[in-house]
């Protein structure tokens, strides 16, 4: 029977690849047992698909859909969703309201296809009334949105899946693993005397051109930004990162930010918050005392 993922073995490294979360997914690991390798590969695929179908805002009938269609009613969420919402809440607090999982509605006001945009001011002010984590009543395990509000785990879900899959490798007797879902990466290798994982970092402005290599035993890498998605407003170029407070794209934002940190989720949030800092992105990143790469046109 055809498996929905590929598992191969070469130079003592297992490679499992599949497509999920709108990205090519690749998991490299070392296992002395073919049985454990197979089990882990299957589990990796299943867990990734589970997280995708649970937290994707594009799929109907999941918890996100249930919350977004709750029409002002209180919704009880499960333990895992509760952890995600707690985390989103902390990100909102730590970023002074810049990282906001309720800001997705702004997508309806802007089209990032490189064209000149003049947003409908009335629509924008209507939308802003439906945006803001502070308007959400989150009393675990119950969440209550204003009618019409929406949330999405866009900035958290994939990174969470990457870390989650890497963490569970240990229970499959797998000591060394690298999880790479479309450039969001987590590595585990507790044996610091053995060679680290070596990761090529791609220039997000130029496809297939590695701009450097990073050696990492244990850590996470994430990139925020997309040079292909931008719009023009009064002739000025804006990236697709929107400020949830104003409803307008962030001015002078980098085209992309890559961050190396302790895990993928942490790296992803720092990269996203850096983008939201616009022209001060580098200053913000410097202050975090982390390895990063900030790309500007």
């Amino acid at each position, binding site marked *: 029977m055809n498996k929905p993922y590929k598992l191969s073995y070469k130079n003592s490294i297992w490679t499992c690849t599949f497509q999920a979360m709108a990205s090519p997914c690749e998991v490299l690991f070392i296992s002395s047992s073919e049985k454990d390798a197979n089990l882990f590969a299957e589990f990796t695929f299943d867990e990734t698909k589970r997280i995708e179908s649970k937290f994707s805002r594009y799929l109907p009938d999941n918890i996100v859909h249930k919350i977004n269609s709750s029409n002002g009613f209180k919704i009880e969420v499960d333990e895992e969703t509760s952890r995600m919402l*707690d985390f989103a809440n902390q990100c909102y607090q730590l970023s002074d309201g810049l990282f906001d999982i309720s800001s997705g509605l702004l997508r309806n006001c802007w089209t990032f296809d490189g064209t000149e945009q003049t947003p409908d001011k009335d629509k924008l002010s209507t939308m802003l009334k439906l945006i803001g984590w502070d308007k959400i009543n989150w009393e675990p395990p119950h969440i209550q949105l204003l009618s019409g509000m929406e949330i999405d785990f866009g900035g958290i879900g994939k990174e969470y899946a990457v870390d989650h899959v890497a963490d569970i490798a240990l229970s499959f007797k797998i000591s060394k693993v690298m999880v790479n879902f479309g450039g969001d990466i987590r590595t585990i290798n507790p044996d610091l005397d053995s060679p680290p994982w070596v990761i090529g970092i791609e220039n997000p402005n130029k496809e297939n051109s590695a701009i450097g290599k990073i050696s990492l035993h244990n850590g996470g890498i994430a990139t925020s930004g997309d040079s292909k998605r931008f719009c023009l407003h009064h002739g000025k170029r804006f990236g697709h990162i929107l400020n949830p407070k104003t409803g307008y794209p962030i001015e002078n934002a980098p085209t992309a930010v890559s961050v190396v940190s302790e895990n993928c989720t942490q790296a992803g949030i*720092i990269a996203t918050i850096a983008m939201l800092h616009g022209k001060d992105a580098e200053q913000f990143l410097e202050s975090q005392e982390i390895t990063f790469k900030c790309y500007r046109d």
Partner: protein
Amino acid sequence: MQLNKQLSIKSALAIATTVLLGAQIAKATDVESTLLIYSEKDRVSAGEGAVSIKHELNETQNIKIKLTFDALTGASPNGAAPASSVQTFTRPSGNGSYDIQPGIIPLDDTFKDSRFAVSGTYTRKLSRLNNFFIGANFSGEHDYTSLGVNTGFSRDFNNRNRTISVSVSFTSDKVNPEGGVPIPYDTLALIGESTSRLGPNATKKVYDLLLGVTQTINRNTLFRANYSRSHSTGYLNDPYKFFSVVENSSSANPGEPLTYLYENRPDARNKNSIYTQCRKFLNGNVIDLSYRFFWDDWGINSHTINLFYLFDFKNNTTLEPHIRWYHQSAADFYIPVQIDGSSNQQFTTADYRLSTFSAVTLGLQYSIPMQATHTLKLSFEYYRQFGDSSPPGLIGSLLRYDMFPTLNAVMFRVGYNFSF
């Protein structure tokens, strides 16, 4: 100031991500507990308590243990027919007797029993698509013990849209009735009268096979079909059931009892059933319709139709009304009474459970989430069983009596489920 605030993000995020990722695959323990009260009008009352514990050993294995205790008391039909005068029956133990007033279906009020049951199942995910389980169960009451083992395998196909499963079980039962195992067609003894018995106990073995397929039709529709086959062999009588032998139509009192003989059933039974179920998810609500057809080589056919609808309210409480209709035909060897002068059939029973009857169940379940992983469930069921009050084969005075009084029963259940 700004710098300090920014510096804190990284370390605060480190803690936040640890919490987010900290609770890994839950090695959760799920507990389900229920208390049930069942009451038949004028007949049996029962109470049952059950606790089921499921523990995830790791991502691929779990064990489940269930403990059940129930207590039963009340009266049950002994198989004899009503009569125009008081009937006296010896209790199964041989000590003492009970009297039944004229015109009434005789009920043996001796029933008083408690049962303890334990079962365990170990489930293992063999690979991404294959699952396996193995289990054992035991139950004991003062006159009956049952020991069983079971195992099964399931496999997902077609992107998990189809699951095929097969399971088998074997059960070995032992009955040690009060007063010993009666000899079929032996006359019900009078008080103090010594009577020969087959022995102190008897055994029965049951082999079951279940084949199932579950198919996802589309995102909102699920279809399931099962075929099950069961083969029983050994002592299949109810040791407390007998039947009346009544005076024939040329006698002075046609229909009045002369004597009572212990029932006699075949020592093998093959049962089959086909079950189909369709479940549809409608915007959070669920509608579920199932039909089961059963047939065996004792001549019984039955049909069961079950319909339920689940209302999922915004606050996560659910309300689940259901209705079930059941009808069965009688076993080939069922007779309400035997008429004096006719020779014994090869097999005979007057047990109402093997006669033609119908039943309707109306139920309502209300489920209330209490906190994160706790749920309270309340359910109520009303059961009504009705049969042929004047079945073929009656004569004389028997034609005046209700041979199948309608049975009404209610059941109330409280369940509390939680995980930790």
